């Protein structure tokens, strides 16, 4: 088995999430690959656009959604630009699943709090949908999600579905004429809502500055470091701990991560 060889996959559907983000729904072309494929929420994949390069994305679909996988890409570099130019039916390469996952088994019986910002919702969507599908295993689920503008909110088409099993709170940094919801930052909303830290696990993903203040609020609410989870991001090439660039201290984000809790992160050099 060659770990560098991608599986071929066809882009089934492209959903425009925000002006610069698209979600790609892909299906493996080889039925054998599709049958053998299994993953856990929080794992990531390497997506190849042949001739352009490879890029790291988290699997934003949940393992409970069978038969296809999804990932969201914001247009920033050459590979993501090429992906944004792709059309439905195009063939791409996928190496997945890679990395560790959210410890959803350990969380059983606990309340869950998700605090996300912008494209940071992508890794959290996977675990959120997974937990919602196994609602009976978990306590109360709370989602706080914010973005710069209403247009930058991703996965709008799923909010109604989420609301069936979770409390969903949305906020934007700057509203527009059509926006009737809350205006303000995620940390401020978190402080206002003040969810209980008792028997609760918090998951936070988003821009570093948001994470910094969300952490402060979570600490103030009494969350312990080991109950706060996030996914880290580093440049990756091989995705299997060999190419040597995604290390933080002696941990490779691609093998030991991308999911870390803050107790683990506190032991690492402050390099990310």
């Amino acid at each position: 088995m060659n770990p560098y060889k991608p599986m071929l996959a066809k882009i089934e559907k492209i959903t425009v999430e925000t002006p610069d983000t698209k979600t790609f729904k892909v299906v493996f072309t080889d039925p054998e690959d599709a049958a053998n494929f299994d993953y856990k929420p929080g794992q990531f994949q390497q997506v190849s656009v042949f001739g352009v390069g490879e890029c790291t994305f988290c699997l934003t679909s949940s393992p409970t959604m069978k038969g296809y996988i999804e990932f969201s890409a914001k247009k920033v570099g050459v590979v993501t630009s090429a992906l944004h130019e792709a059309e439905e039916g195009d063939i791409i390469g996928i190496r997945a699943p890679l990395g560790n996952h959210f410890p959803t088994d350990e969380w059983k019986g606990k309340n869950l709090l998700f605090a996300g910002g912008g494209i940071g919702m992508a890794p959290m969507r996977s675990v959120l949908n997974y937990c919602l599908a196994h609602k009976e295993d978990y306590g109360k689920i709370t989602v706080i999600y914010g973005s710069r503008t209403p247009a930058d909110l991703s996965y709008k088409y799923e909010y109604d579905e989420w609301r069936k099993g979770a409390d969903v709170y949305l906020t934007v940094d700057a509203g527009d004429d059509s926006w009737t919801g809350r205006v303000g930052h995620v940390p401020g909303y978190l402080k206002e809502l003040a969810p209980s830290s008792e028997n609760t696990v918090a998951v936070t993903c988003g821009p570093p500055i948001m994470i910094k203040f969300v952490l402060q609020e979570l600490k103030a609410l009494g969350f312990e470091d080991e109950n706060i989870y996030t996914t880290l991001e580093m440049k990756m090439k091989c995705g299997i701990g060999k190419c040597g660039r995604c290390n933080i201290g002696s941990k490779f984000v691609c093998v030991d991560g991308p999911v870390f809790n803050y107790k683990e992160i506190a032991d690492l050099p402050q390099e990310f």
Partner: protein
Amino acid sequence: MKLLPKSGVAGFIKELSKTREVVAPVSDGESYAVFKSVAPGETPIIDGSRFILSPRSWFMPGYEVLFETKDGEIVDKTPETKAYATIGLYLADAHALEVFDRVFLDGDKPDPYYNARRADNAIFALVPAKKRWSVFWGMTGNVCDWKKACDVVMYDLGSEFVMEPMTDRGAELTKSLADADDSKKAAADALLARYDEGEVDVKAIGERLMWDNPKWEEVSRKCVACGVCTYGCPSCSCFDMRDDLKCGGAERYRCLDSCQHADFTLMGSGYNPRPGRMPRTRQRLLHKFKYQPEQFGMIGCVGCGRCVELCPVGIDIRKIVGGKETK
């Protein structure tokens, strides 16, 4: 132990090449010797007369195509596993292959490209007669232990090599040679003892090379981020994977890369976790002396001294690790 007179080297290699593809340092231009497959009639340079570049260039070539796409299919380009014999790499380089093995072969996803060159490769490691000024094997490990990484250890005694087989394969390949007497064995041991100078204290080194040591700034000030240290290193294994378009499809290749380059960790968003020369210098040293011992209990540096010799600005890893520049 066996004896191989230097005049017999060409014949020995000819014999060896009947069953295995022989890889050895050969002349490359005017000043260096590089590891290549030895062509018939070509004489390897193993007498210490030239600066031998690291065997990494053979085990991890400058670039190799991983796969191609053709007609919508992926064509795997994993090379065939062949029988090789690598001759004339330093004992330290043989130890560096053990570091490579940890990186490439351990875990549940071994690297097939590296494995194809490593799986059946008889290692003839060299202990040169003349210890170069830059060599510091003894500071990074127990040199006698490194012999286990080889099939045959060759001690250069001037006019002849004492060949010490370490494995059955090594014994098989050297059985045609004459036996060495006790005086030669003693000379060989004395030669190796000269390389086993210095002390290894991983813990002390780890403490000296603290992540937030203010001295890092000073160490890295003169660094020009050229990355020659990493390209010359036998145990540096970092690589890059890129795509190129070619007629009728695309190919993905991997090429050497260096943690000293600014774009090594530069992300698409423009954010770089190691933006300056200081974090990059620190990364290289900590990777070898702290992270790799934590990951698999082995110092990543083997003390071959090539970075000391090649560094254009004279940064001496021995002084940094020995605490003379970071005290």
